[in-house]
């Protein structure tokens, strides 16, 4: 077990492609870090540099206090789980798990004990002699996990390990990975583009955008205090509403409507206002601002109401039990408003 330090790490591919730009992350021993961001933002590249599968253009990666830039993947004491599992097709489940240990010269009895233990943990006993071809996607995923576990590495690296599974299996495997990681206490770095997966798994989230870190923090911290409009729009589903506004005094103006806010100092002038769909309420007795419904998505307990106010598209989450009035007016909670700089998109902390 070990901590991982990523200091000023950059990656430039041939042709001047800056896939990762000067990333700094300190990962504590036993921590579960999730790298999240849209496709092509450099998540895999960063993970693969830590694994040693990709060279680091500049900066340093250290595992357990030792700089590993020039260390072979096998000597970095990490285990990786790939999106397509990358199981050896001609080897049985047992052989797949044992291969890494065998190459390290681990005694047979020890290999056997470790594989048996992992197999029990992952409930793979009935499949020990099967080839990967004869397993379901979920079972293959477990074998890939098993192959990582038996090595007892300092860190697990996951590259979108669940994205080839169907939605239901993904949720249950997600739970299992989380439990397993807590039980083993192994430092983990997990890549996903699924923000829900990121929120549920992470001790801390790292939100990446175009090769740069936008924000690092606990899931709730990132959710409640997004550092930029990018993070605000990426984390949380449905996405946060972002509205261009102009503020004078305690009045927020957008389009031809205004919202008055008390009990809070507001950044004056132009900015971007962020409101989560669940932080918008139906206003009572004619207060608030007018909202026109375009269409409604029923989710069961809740409904997503998509519409617009003064030409600005907005999404509102409302309880299914409340009947929608003819003329809808919405109100906001002052403390739930987020403000971002109109120029840089960065959060404005009042």
């Amino acid at each position: 077990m070990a901590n991982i330090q990523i200091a000023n790490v950059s990656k430039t591919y041939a042709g001047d492609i800056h896939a990762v730009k000067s990333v700094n992350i300190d990962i504590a021993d036993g921590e579960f870090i999730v790298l999240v961001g849209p496709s092509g933002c450099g998540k895999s590249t960063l993970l693969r540099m830590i694994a040693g599968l990709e060279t680091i253009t500049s900066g340093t990666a250290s595992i357990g206090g030792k700089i590993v830039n020039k260390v072979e993947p096998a000597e970095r004491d990490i285990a990786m789980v790939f999106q397509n599992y990358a199981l050896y097709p001609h080897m049985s489940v047992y052989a797949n798990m044992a291969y890494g240990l065998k190459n390290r010269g681990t005694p047979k009895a020890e290999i056997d004990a470790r594989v048996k233990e992992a197999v029990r943990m992952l409930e793979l006993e009935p499949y020990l002699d099967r080839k990967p071809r004869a397993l379901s996607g979920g079972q293959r995923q477990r074998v890939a996990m098993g192959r990582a576990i038996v090595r007892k590495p300092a860190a697990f690296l996951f590259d979108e390990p669940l994205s080839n599974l169907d939605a239901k299996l993904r949720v249950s495997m997600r739970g299992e990975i989380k439990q397993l990681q807590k039980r083993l206490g192994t430092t983990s770095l997990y890549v996903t583009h699924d923000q829900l997966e990121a929120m549920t798994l992470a001790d801390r989230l790292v939100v990446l955008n175009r090769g740069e870190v936008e924000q690092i923090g606990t899931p709730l911290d990132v959710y409640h205090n997004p550092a930029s409009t990018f993070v605000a729009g990426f984390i949380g589903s449905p996405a946060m509403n972002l509205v261009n506004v102009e503020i004078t005094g305690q009045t927020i103006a957008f389009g031809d409507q205004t919202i008055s806010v008390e009990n809070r100092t507001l950044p004056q002038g132009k900015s971007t206002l962020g409101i989560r769909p669940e932080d918008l309420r139906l206003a009572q007795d004619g207060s608030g601002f007018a909202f026109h419904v375009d269409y409604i998505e029923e989710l069961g307990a809740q409904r997503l109401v998509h519409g617009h106010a003064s030409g600005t598209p907005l999404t509102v989450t409302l309880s299914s039990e409340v009947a929608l009035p003819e003329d809808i007016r919405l109100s906001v909670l002052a403390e739930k408003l987020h403000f971002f700089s109109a120029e840089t998109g960065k959060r404005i902390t009042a």
Partner: protein
Amino acid sequence: MKKYIDHLILIIGVVFMMGPVVVAFMTSTHDAAEIHMQGLMTTWGGHFAETYDEVLFEKGGFTGQVTGLAMLKNSFILGIGFAVGKIVLSMLAAYGIVYFRFRMGVVFFWMIFTTLLLPLEVRILPSYMVMSKLHLIDTYSGLIVPLLASATGTFYFRQFFKSVPDELLEAARIDGAGPFKFFIDILVPLSRNMVAAIFVIMFVYGWNQYLWPMLMTTDESFFTLVRGIKQILLVWVGSQIPDYNQAFALAVLAMLPPILVVIIFQSWFIKGLTESDK
């Protein structure tokens, strides 16, 4: 109805292909004089045992030193040596080309590829000279080695290795497998269907070699079956009738091993050329 037509076409095909084989076999069971007078036979002649016994075990040939069995052995050495050598060589070449970035790798690949344009027949003189300078005339090495370098094999294995997912290599690297272990533990087992397919093709090709063995070996103890057939018909001296029956028997014998190899390997053969197991 369509099914019957399909079957009819296939049956006609089988008869067409198998007819000559059956005729050769039937003819080989008659005695030489009879064949000389009446030509090809389609009936059972009753001399099966003597003819085949004579062909396999009696010393014959120009020097009277070589038996059919010895020729069979030589053919096997040539066929297997050729197939195995080609597979080993082309797998290693393809491994180098696909997995190692070395200077001018592409150039080397295309250089290997252009040798497809230079079959043995084209380079027979220089190849012969090299072998003779190396004193490899009348040796098995001389018979086999010049035929080994194979663009086809290298090309097939290159395509196959390229289709192996990169993650497999990466997983193996993390699992502590170096280049050698990755080749032996992962690539070779994954290629086994491919190896079987190429083995079949190359074995038959090597088995049927005629021109090169004729040039490279003068010593009759290196004769292969394919040459033996020709040799028997050459004893057209004086008023003696060539041993047609023996020639046909040898031809039948010469056909058997390639057929067996194809039958034994056919399931792998088809898998190797059509499906992949990754």
